[in-house]
């Protein structure tokens, strides 16, 4: 008996018992759609996490003075707490596996353009800063290393600042007064949105670090060329743990920390920090997906139950088929195909309902949802598996019937 004839026989049997077939399918429909919704929610959550990490820059090390665990510690008499440009240079030149490094120092200043005032944060950075944060202008350009060295009066502004100062018109080439210093706008940064703490990351301006230090903030921190923070991007091909350890060793050396003494600085991998913070969220997602998987299992048991009822009810039919020449495998395949067709159809319906449900949740804007094409394969694969797994026993039992007793069955 060929497979097409077998499928036709199975389809006919299912159509003859349409209501029962539909009810048997229901469990699988619910199971598969639940799995799809849960997988989409979980995927959406982990995507949101990855986006957050990406908005900081992947594999970004953030070096700050003072240990985060022990508050702002100062070193021994005569040592500087603040880091400076020499530390940035040392990291760039002495550590292997660093793709880009930049110091940063920031403060608040007032921006004035055409009589419009806006007070916001200005960050002084080195030329590689854009690379470390993986954040670039959407129009215009970044500044050159020479402009950093010479303290050129150039500035890049964030989207929020651009909107507040210039509205819809193009700010590039305009002169904005920052505090008392007129500066030329050379670029507008791409939109970054809110940080995970709700801070508007586009309400900011970026200028060469020397310009900010010397002309705008004018702090006297007792250190030559101070920086508040150093951002170092680890090369994608490098071992992050090894680079972090090398960097810590270098900083201890440069800051004269005796062996055994505590660090007076901290090195944080922000991506890992966020990953750890969101671990619980994805575990919750896994739990939900597992619960949905259990409902699929229950659906499968429903299929098995219906198939057992069906094979018992059709005992005489099985006897007749055996009498007219059906082999055991023919009978087994017929019922196996019936249960696979039930589950497969249920899986398709569940796929549609699940995608519809996920799209609906997405439209509520409460949770980020990510519907991936792989869920289609999950749905089809899982339902076919359920069909074969739970259909096998009833089908096998039917195929072992004795034709004489089956024909005599009342």
């Amino acid at each position, binding site marked *: 008996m060929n497979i097409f004839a077998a499928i036709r026989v199975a389809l006919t049997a299912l159509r*003859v018992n349409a209501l029962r077939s539909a009810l048997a399918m229901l469990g699988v429909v619910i199971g598969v759609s639940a799995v799809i919704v849960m997988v989409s929610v979980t995927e959406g959550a982990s995507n949101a996490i990855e986006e957050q990490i990406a908005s900081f820059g992947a594999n970004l090390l953030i070096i700050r003075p003072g240990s985060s665990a022990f508050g702002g510690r100062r070193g021994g008499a005569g040592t500087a707490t603040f880091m400076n440009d020499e530390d940035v240079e040392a990291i760039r030149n002495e550590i292997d596996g660093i793709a880009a490094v930049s110091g940063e120092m920031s403060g608040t200043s007032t921006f004035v353009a055409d009589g419009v005032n806006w007070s916001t944060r200005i960050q002084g950075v080195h030329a590689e800063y854009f690379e470390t944060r993986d954040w670039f202008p959407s129009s215009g350009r970044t500044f050159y290393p020479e402009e950093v060295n010479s303290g050129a009066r150039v500035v890049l502004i964030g989207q929020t600042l651009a909107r507040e100062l210039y509205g819809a018109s193009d700010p590039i080439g305009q002169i904005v007064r920052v505090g008392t210093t007129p500066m030329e706008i050379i670029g507008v940064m791409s939109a970054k949105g809110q940080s995970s703490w709700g801070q508007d990351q586009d309400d900011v301006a970026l200028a060469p670090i020397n310009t900010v230090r010397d002309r705008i903030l004018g702090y006297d921190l007792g250190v030559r060329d101070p920086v508040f923070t150093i951002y170092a991007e680890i090369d994608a091909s490098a071992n992050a743990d090894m680079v972090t350890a090398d960097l810590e060793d270098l900083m201890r050396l440069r800051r004269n920390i005796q062996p055994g003494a505590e660090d007076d600085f901290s090195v944080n991998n922000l991506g890992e920090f966020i990953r750890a913070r969101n671990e619980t969220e994805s575990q919750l997602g896994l739990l939900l997906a597992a619960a949905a998987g259990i409902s699929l299992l229950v659906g499968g048991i429903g299929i098995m139950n219906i198939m057992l009822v069906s094979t018992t009810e059709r005992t005489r039919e099985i006897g007749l088929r055996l009498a007219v*020449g059906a*082999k055991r495998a023919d009978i087994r395949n017929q019922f196996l195909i019936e249960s696979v067709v039930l589950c497969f159809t249920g899986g398709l319906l569940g796929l549609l309902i699940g995608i519809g449900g996920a799209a609906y949740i997405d439209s509520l804007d409460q949770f980020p949802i990510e519907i991936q094409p792989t869920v289609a394969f999950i749905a089809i694969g899982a339902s076919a598996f359920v069909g074969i797994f739970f259909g096998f026993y009833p089908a096998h039992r039917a195929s072992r019937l004795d034709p004489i007793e089956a024909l005599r069955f009342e």
Partner: protein
Amino acid sequence: MSSALIHCRDLTRVYKMGDNEVHALRGVSVDIQRGEYVAIMGSSGSGKSTFMNMIGALDRPTSGTLEIDGEKLEGMKPDELAAFRGRRVGFVFQQFNLLPRTAAVDNASLPLVYSGISAAERKQRAEARLTQVGLGERMDHHPSQLSGGQQQRVAIARALVNDPTILLADEPTGALDTQTSEEILQIFDALNRDGMTIILVTHEQDVADHARRQIVFRDGQIIEDRT
């Protein structure tokens, strides 16, 4: 080897029912020739149904030899027996055993599904047999739309569709009235005139009178074999 179509020697069949052994057949030896029309008679429990199951390849003997058209049945595995039934035997049952909610033509073509015959040929052959039994106008009717006699005709068409060597009928008129029974038996008579070997199990003498040979069973043995 024997020239007989059905050749059996010392057939026994023992069923185990718990601790009891039931001897359904106790040493049956009989030959049936090609083209014969045989009625198997006896009261219930006489062994006639067991004997029919045996020559229909639905059951295997506990001991003895059974050869049909040169093939030895006693050593066959279940799937080999199934293939043998599909090739050699046509069954007609007392309760018709048609598939419900399934058209007459699909019921009649059922055995061909298992012998790997294409859908088009299945339909053509089933239609030919339905026409032969006088149901040419009712190919697409479901069993519930047919009378008892018509349902049994569908069952006969189904039994004939694979061109069997033997037609086995187990009380084929048991569920029919006298008039309809007579019509069904006339179909068997006509088939036998065309050369079909027919074995008919019955406990009614007037049904058995259609056959040209009557074999009577009692307590698992043949007590009478008359022509």
